[in-house]
């Protein structure tokens, strides 16, 4: 049991967020939590690569888009059900990450970061020119598809619970990775890749698998998100801006920690939402969010969890 004290807070945070809509019973709360949980799951996935392995992936959203497209295609064109389509989305993203990992993870530092942006843009251009995926128009889904899942209202609740489950799973996987030998290998790579290799860490394969692991969940979530939206377009699927926001969330909470991305994503999205819907700030919300982030990152560069860990050593056992 003691082994899992570090996981407790993160799991608890996700569960509490997930059940809030049950208590309020309101659809608007559910939508707000959907945005937050999606960010948590995406940021935690990214953290497995960015935080543990130390490779900055600027174009991580490519897996979200690819998963969404693959799943949407099987759902609307081939007529598969949501669950199968979701698995297809996840598997496609993982496969792409594996192939990419084999090639571009040989690059280090800034070169890798640049390559990930290139991959995202290339994928967008590719999808734009694929007629069977709808090209620039994208694909749409009939409203009646929701009837198979108990009508639109039910379907949206269902999607929400599945997403909550995925968010929980990501957090648990993130913790297990961190505590495993595999995770230690990743962190060794982060600190000094050559030294890690000398120590017996198989850097290329470890990096590839961490890339795959961090790509599976965005693939699953992509499918869920676009199923909920009812349509998919290249511009929305491969939105670089969202990718950058994810990195900010991870940095904000504390990269390389399990709780950090959960905290960072939750706070960031809640902040954005408050600004967006507040009568005072809604016209300048992006500027205010930018300034706040600047202050936080200037003064607590290791993120909230990193700062707490350093400031209060006793907390280290629970703040993993």
């Amino acid at each position, binding site marked *: 049991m003691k082994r899992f004290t570090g996981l407790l807070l993160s799991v608890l945070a996700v569960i509490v967020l997930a059940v809030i809509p049950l208590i309020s019973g309101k659809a608007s709360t559910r939508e*707000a939590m959907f945005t937050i949980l999606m960010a948590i799951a995406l940021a935690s996935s990214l953290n497995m690569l960015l935080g543990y392995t130390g490779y900055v992936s600027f174009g991580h959203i490519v897996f979200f888009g690819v998963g969404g497209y693959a799943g949407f295609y099987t759902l609307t064109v081939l007529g598969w059900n949501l669950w199968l389509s979701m698995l297809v989305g996840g598997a496609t993203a993982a496969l792409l990450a594996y192939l990419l990992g084999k090639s571009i993870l040989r690059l280090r530092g800034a070169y890798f970061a640049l390559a990930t942006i290139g991959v995202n843009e290339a994928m967008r251009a590719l999808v734009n020119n694929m007629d069977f995926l709808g090209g*620039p128009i994208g694909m*749409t889904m009939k409203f009646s598809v929701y009837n198979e899942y108990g009508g639109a209202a039910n379907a949206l609740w269902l999607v929400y619970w599945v997403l909550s489950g995925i968010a929980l799973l990501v957090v648990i996987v993130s913790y297990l990775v961190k505590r495993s030998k595999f995770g230690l290998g990743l962190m060794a790579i982060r600190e000094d890749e050559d030294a*890690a290799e000398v120590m017996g860490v198989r850097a290329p394969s470890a990096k590839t698998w961490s890339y795959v692991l961090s790509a599976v969940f965005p693939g699953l979530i992509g499918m869920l998100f676009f199923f909920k939206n009812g349509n998919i377009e290249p511009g929305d699927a491969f939105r670089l801006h969202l990718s950058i926001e994810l990195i900010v969330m991870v*940095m904000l909470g504390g990269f*390389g920690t399990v709780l950090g991305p959960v905290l960072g994503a939750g706070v960031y999205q809640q902040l954005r939402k408050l600004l967006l819907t507040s009568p005072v700030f809604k016209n300048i919300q*992006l500027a205010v969010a930018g300034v706040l982030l600047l202050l936080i990152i200037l003064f607590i560069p290791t993120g909230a969890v990193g700062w707490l*860990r350093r400031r209060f050593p006793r907390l280290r056992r629970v703040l993993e």
Partner: protein
Amino acid sequence: MPYVGTRSTWLLLVPHKPKPTELDGNIELFCIKEGTVRRTYVWTALLLVLALVMAACGGTSGTTETTAAPNTTAAPGTTAASGTTAAPSGEMKTLKIGFTTSITGKYNTESTRQDNGLQLWMDDVNAAGGITLSDGTVLKFEAVSYDDESNKDRVQELYTKLATDDDADFLISPYSSGLTAASAVIAEQYGKVMITTGAASDSVYTQGYTGVYQVYTPSSRYLTSSVDLLGSLDPSAKKIAFVYENSNFSTGVAEAAKAYAESNGYEVVLYEGYDPDTQDFSAFINKIEASGPDAILGGGHFQDGSAFARQLYEKKIPVKFVSLLVAPPEPSFSELGDAAVGVAGPSQWEPLVKFTEDAAMAAGADWIGLTGDEFVAEYQAAYGEEPSYHAAGGYAAGLLLQYAIQKADSTDADAIKAALDATNLMTFFGDLKFDTSPDHHGLQIGHDMVVVQWQKADGGLQKQIVWPESGATAAPLYPLGQ
């Protein structure tokens, strides 16, 4: 921790010699406090924030000029509303109209104009004492709106909030087909009536919605009128080149126009899409030259369309007719000077278009609201600029809702849907009528677009309506002399 020996020996030391405060001997971020890695991260973080701030400024700075305008108009609206003294015996009810606008992001210009138009309608109807139902209830309107940032992330969240928390009675669509598609799912789910404006794509209306109604002429009919115009001008011109932007809207337009042209006996000699950020069209222009078309159709949005028109002019491509999307109807297109002369384009609405109550009577349609001239005058007084068709679309969406409520004599969603299904209306914006078949429910079938063309007049440039013939303000300039 002092730096001992080479980098790798230092790392070897870490598990054996942890900092006193370090637990478990894990290789943690903090045991390399003096390392360069952390510094790199700080710089990356700073860079990121800078990028976000710049994005924020980029979005908002564009807004300042446009959002400043409505503030000046808030006054007439409110004073007018408070000045109403009619106060009939019935109860007073304020209906909420919910929508999102793109205060930030790439749709800012169009979306702000659409919002301006809608606000103007709301001010007008409130100032006129609202809508009085037969049971004496007086209905007034108020807007609830949020920024959708021109992207889909929060559109559903915000529309759910509008439909539930804010309890909006009616919804208006965001600007653009993509955002509208996402919001329509929510509108339908909560059984709200949603009037869409600024969303031309046909695909939204093939998804089986029952409460979503389109004000704009759908994208499948955007360029077909240009084909008709070409046919009426010169039956011998048979070769068309399509060069269009690779985006949801323009590709939809080009696909439909190509099919239409081919079914009318035209030969499509070139059919090429370009990337949305394209500024250099020389590769496409070479292809156009090689294929020797009589007419060029296509374009996309303002930036690329203007660049395309200018480069066509500079390269002196010998074509007889050019019709482009979105850019030519914008007043600022005239800044191209001679390159703009003769360039035509479809427009949802133009200040010169005249629809009147008499015309409505003659056509057996209902009429509601003000005339085009009154709209232009009011809009100019309120916002200090000439209204574009986005603004007119916003106003028309409000008028349509007003009409449906009056017709249904109720605010019940089902009664209003029935009224909208049976709509046969003419406004300053043109005809409005909806497809009621289950496969295309809510698709606009009444409204027609006009074709405008820039022509030389009095030493300057003037935008003239050249199609349809019945509404033309000038004869088309044809063929383009090069």
